[in-house]
């Protein structure tokens, strides 16, 4: 219901040493009409130009401290509030590639009343560097 808003392309930035970035980060909002406990966020699939990063390259912080996706599985006491930005960190040698690229995100959520997982998809053009 909010797919088109889940990536904030203006927030893409490199992480690590300025002259040798080891990844990038960007802000995301939960594509759902309420907040959700982090244990129900199953996947955050990030891609550049269709190339999806491995699960262990991703970490997440809604404001409570950095977690890997594996750690999020048992984060029963942390919540991602409705409409609130959180940060996704992606390990990527050299940082976000220079020039124009398509950044994609798929949020896979475990919604109890639905028989199947909920997928929220967005992609944005990002010009960088």
């Amino acid at each position, binding site marked *: *219901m909010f797919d088109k808003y889940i990536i904030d392309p203006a927030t893409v930035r490199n992480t690590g040493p300025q002259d040798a970035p080891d990844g990038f980060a960007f802000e995301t909002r939960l594509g759902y009409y309420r*907040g959700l406990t982090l*244990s*129900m966020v199953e996947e955050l699939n990030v891609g550049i130009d269709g190339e999806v990063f491995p699960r262990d390259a991703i970490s997440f912080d809604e404001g409570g401290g950095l977690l890997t996706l594996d750690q999020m599985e048992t984060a029963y006491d942390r919540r991602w509030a409705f409409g*609130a930005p959180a940060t996704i960190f992606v390990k990527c040698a050299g940082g976000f590639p220079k020039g124009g690229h398509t950044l994609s995100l798929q949020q896979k959520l475990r*919604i*109890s*009343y639905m028989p199947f997982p909920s997928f929220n998809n967005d992609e944005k053009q990002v010009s960088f560097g």
Partner: protein
Amino acid sequence: MSKIKRGVSLYSFQEEMFLGQMTVEDCVAFAASIGATGIEILPEQNMPTFPNISDAQVDEWMAMVARHGCHFTAYDMFLDTKLRKDRLMSDDEQVESIVRDLKLCNRLGIKNMRVLVFVRPDILGRCVPYAEELDVHMGVEVHAPWHIEHAWILRTIEEADRLGTKHLGILPDMGIFLKHYPPVWRARFERQGARPEITQFIVDSHEAKIMAEYTIFEVAVKMQGNKAEVAMAETLRHNPYANPKRLADYAPYFRHIQAKFYEMNEDCIDPSLAYEEAIDTLVKCGWEGTLSSEYEGNRWIQDVSEVDSREQVRRQHVMFDRLIAQAQTKYGTKEPA
């Protein structure tokens, strides 16, 4: 005078709240401005610190609503049975989660709790003593494709009867009365590549009340429909048209209605949902409760236009006033039989 009251669910303003264009108080102020003084909340949407809500926060909420001359009507609960990846919540954990919501509902002074339709009737039966003590009516949301006399919904009715309680029942969502296919849905599928001759076929099939599976097979297999066309046909599976007259038979079991809608046109007419029949039935049977706007049109138009939830909700309330007055004229002021 009809005893039907008008209100809004904060769900209606999800687009503007998500984008930070409206605060909760903006929504309440707007509702007050159109005389829709009953406020339905979704704590998991509207209270960022949920489930940890202090007494000070409760006081702030109640003062804010009162400041605008409004009052709370309903509390929308959720139940995360799949909180853990490795197993479902146990029955005891489910009861505990629902009781947590009943308590917060009570602290906020709210008498109606919208229960998600998938919650098991026997679990709700176990919650009844708490609901009675806290004086909160648990209404199982009758959401499309369920309908009022669906066997699953009847299990809740039977559970309420078995326990002889006034604190368990239903809470109809007007989406069950989808009489005509919504033009905003069709338009969105056409923008996604559905061909007009196929979308017309789907609309005609829905209009003829043909059972969804026939239409889906026609579109997907015989017509070799594309992705958007098949997706549009599949919406029929979740949107049958139920008979609004059934509302009268079950009126004692509900005190609140989620007035779902997808679009109100400029003449303040809902092109798809059978509000005229539903409100006629509610007035005729003397139902007492709140029609609470639940605008869900944002997701169908946000790809091409700005969402104006306020204007949509305003138009729905013009319709409510018109239809309630029309039914009152028809049935006079006599007390319900």
